[in-house]
């Protein structure tokens, strides 16, 4: 029986901004139902990697393969269908200020699938319940929510389309440790319950240990190390060791 291709494969990605080469042949795979966490210092290209995977940015070279099919070989409509299988939780939530919480969550239903507003609202309230937000917040605007509630609203928006893969960009940044842990637990349970895959980028190693099936460390524009989170402390790699222990001294130069 032929082996199933990975859900997402990034192959030999290169990306430069002016003279600064950010990605130098980065390759990474995410399997079905797998939670992969990408760690690495600031400015090493973690966000650029997921923006390229989501089609928000073009790579200078390399290939994005979804379910065995190269994105570059797809027509515009095929590409849109393939990318619609992905959900995204942005670092700041990226909720639409001018729309109410439920309209944010049901955005795809209202504006893409043309579901009537009453049915869309019911589904939005259901999705909000999954991220432990009550129906009372549905009529509020994003500016009325705390940082943690905004993250949870954005998470509800990301899961409503039942994506096959959700990207999480620094999901715990800017949150207090307790809220951050609650968000980690929520991500783990949602990914498990929905049966979807996850690709998370973070600096937060506690978060990585909690939500990852596999951790990959990016350095100098490529994946330097991959392994189970339990192996992070015993990777045997001086770069990983320095990052995990948060030491300024070592082969990685602080990005000051």
């Amino acid at each position: 029986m032929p082996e199933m291709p990975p859900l997402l494969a990034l192959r030999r990605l290169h990306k430069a901004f002016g003279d600064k080469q950010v990605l130098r042949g980065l390759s990474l795979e995410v399997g079905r139902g797998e939670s992969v966490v990408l760690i690495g210092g600031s400015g090493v290209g973690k966000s650029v990697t997921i923006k390229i995977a989501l089609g928000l940015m073009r790579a200078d070279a390399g290939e994005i393969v979804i379910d065995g099919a190269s994105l570059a070989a797809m027509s515009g409509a095929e590409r849109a269908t393939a990318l619609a299988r992905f959900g995204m939780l942005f670092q700041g939530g990226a909720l639409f200020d001018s729309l109410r919480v439920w309209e944010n969550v049901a955005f795809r239903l209202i504006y893409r699938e043309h579901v009537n507003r009453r049915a869309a609202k019911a589904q939005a309230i259901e999705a909000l319940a999954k991220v432990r937000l009550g129906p009372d917040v549905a009529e509020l605007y994003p500016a009325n929510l705390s940082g943690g509630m905004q993250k949870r609203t954005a998470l509800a928006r990301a899961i409503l389309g039942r994506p096959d893969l959700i990207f999480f960009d620094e999901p715990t940044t800017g949150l207090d440790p307790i809220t951050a842990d609650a968000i980690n637990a929520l991500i783990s349970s949602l990914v498990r319950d929905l049966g979807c895959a996850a690709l998370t980028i973070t600096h937060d190693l506690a978060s990585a240990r909690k939500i990852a099936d596999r951790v990959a460390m990016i350095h100098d524009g490529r994946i330097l190390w991959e392994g189970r989170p339990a192996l992070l402390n015993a990777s045997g790699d001086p770069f990983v060791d320095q990052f995990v222990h948060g030491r300024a001294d070592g082969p990685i130069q602080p990005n000051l």
Partner: protein
Amino acid sequence: MNPLAAIGASTLSIFRLIGAAAIFATRALAAAGSPPFYIDQIGRQMLRIGFFSLPVVGLTAVFIGAALALNIYTGGARFNAEQFVPNIVVLGITRELGPVLAALMLAGRVSAAIAAEIGTMRVTEQIDALKTLSTDPMRFLVAPRVLAAVVTLPLLVIVADILGVMGGFLVSVWSLDFNPSVYLRNTIEFLEAADVGTGLIKAAVFGFLLAVMGCFHGDRSAGGARGVGIAATHAVVSAAVLIFAANYVMTALFVER
């Protein structure tokens, strides 16, 4: 750096900017003219751009009409042509001042607001979020604003025309001793449909320019709050310059020789 190279680099960057703006305007036009149409967004923008601009456009028109009447009276008195005040006021307001001043007021009020809103959406990743939700920002954000401005600016100009003429009428009757019925008869008899029509065509073009400039500069925002502020300033300045330039071109086309 070689001064010639610096001049060359600046010239190239200006042409790049003009090219980018032209491509953006073409894409905006294509998005505004083809489905899907986000009716609720168009309605919301018509309210913001049109209805909420009524007070500022109306007040501007009244005062400009009044000042215009005084100036024409003063100038006309030098060669005994004071009686032409109603004719010149209505011509000046409908063909020129109504559309241009309404557009300039909207450039300040609307272009800046559009640039700031879209710029904030750009720097807070809301535009990226739209794309991940399978929605084209050009159709969801730009097209409704362009359509709303193109439709509502002519409506605002009709209001500005009426109030501008009223401003001239009030000053002429109260301060310059014009007979009210003679003033109104001269105004109505002198006015031609083409005078109003050309003003409305100008208004639609100005609406397109000021909305596109707001969206274009907002979409190019980078660098946080400062970048959003710069985008708003660039939007107002470029919209105002383009309105004056387009006004000259259209006036030259419409003028009967």
